[in-house]
């Protein structure tokens, strides 16, 4: 699954930060995952545990903050929250929506020692 590649990506970022900031151990990793992003949080947790074994982030807690999906309705021209791609505008029912937020996958911060 591609969450394995993404978890490897998180580990790379953590290891680069360890070199830069000089910390030896990671207590927790805070991720921001958009509701409309292409990552399944539970799959991410599983893969994170696997790839961080014997690394500077071995045993670190993975904290996931899910951010809401937002879109602009091209029919009623109003911003609206959406739970998933393909949902209609809750106001006017149109499917002509332009996603504006909620697709991000970021490493926000680390708690280290």
């Amino acid at each position: 699954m591609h969450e394995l590649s993404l978890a490897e990506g998180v580990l790379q970022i953590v290891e680069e930060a360890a070199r830069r900031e000089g910390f030896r151990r990671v207590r927790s990793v805070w991720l921001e995952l958009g509701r409309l992003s292409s990552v399944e949080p539970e799959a991410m947790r599983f893969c994170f545990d696997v790839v961080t074994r014997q690394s500077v982030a071995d045993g670190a807690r993975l904290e996931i903050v899910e951010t809401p999906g937002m879109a602009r309705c091209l029919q009623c021209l109003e911003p609206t929250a959406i739970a998933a791609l393909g949902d209609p505008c809750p106001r006017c029912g149109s499917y002509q929506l332009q996603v504006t937020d909620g697709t991000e996958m970021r490493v926000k911060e680390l708690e280290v020692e």
Partner: protein
Amino acid sequence: MCTTCGCGSDEVRVEGTALAHEHEDHRAHEFDRAHDQRAVMTHAHASEPSSARTVSIEQDILAKNDAFAARNRTALRERGIFALNLVSSPGSGKTAMLEKTIVALAGQIEISVIEGDQQTSHDADRIRASGARAIQINTGRGCHLDAHMVGHAIERLAPGGGSMLMIENVGNLVCPAAFDLGEAHKVVVLSVTEGEDKPLKYPDMFCRASLMLLNKIDLLPYLDFDPERCVEYARRINPGMGVLRVSARTGEGLDGWIEWIRQGIARARANQVEAATAPGQPHAARGARRAKARGRSA
């Protein structure tokens, strides 16, 4: 999988050869990793007070892949190469469409192909037999191509200026969606033997594709598939998506696909000249004109 550049250094093979790593920061990374491991062991034996702190990162998880993709995109633009990322479920007819396309454009447009599969070089062999140059990437257990692998393949393949590059991704409607390869467009191939509601079930992929090729339309008389409903579902997910109905087997609809390709190639060649003749790049203009002339005669 390589934890520096994201490719499976022990699994990913390009034309049967494992990817070589020559990145300077990769060597530095290996040294630092060994150093850190020794430091962790030393620390465990000392009793020091806890020095917990927060380190702000604010970095996209896919930043490395996106950087490789940007490099690929720049290299392709500088050579006026029109690159497509073909995605679909396994068995939709991507390779058959490529074979037909290569034959249709033979002697007019140079086409190079990067093939992605977990194992075998069957698809690259088929492409070569139809008359185009091809390079096979085997991902091993990997489920998608990424920009680093494709960057290596582009270097090995060295497509000519003003030519077309087709990247046939691993058959998978889920994972390849997240990984930009540096292409001009993603083209999703959906066959009428699949469900009409595929676009609703796999919105991420259909959202990111510029064009849907609805393939195997020669089989419609034998199926209950409603193409209008399928197109409606696709446009629900992606209102601006182009749709072309084709049959790789009979050639129906191929003209429209070839015309779409020709327009993309013309745009790529125009972008190359524009970039090369931008202020501050006097010598690039000569190179771009030469590359453009080579592309026309390909």
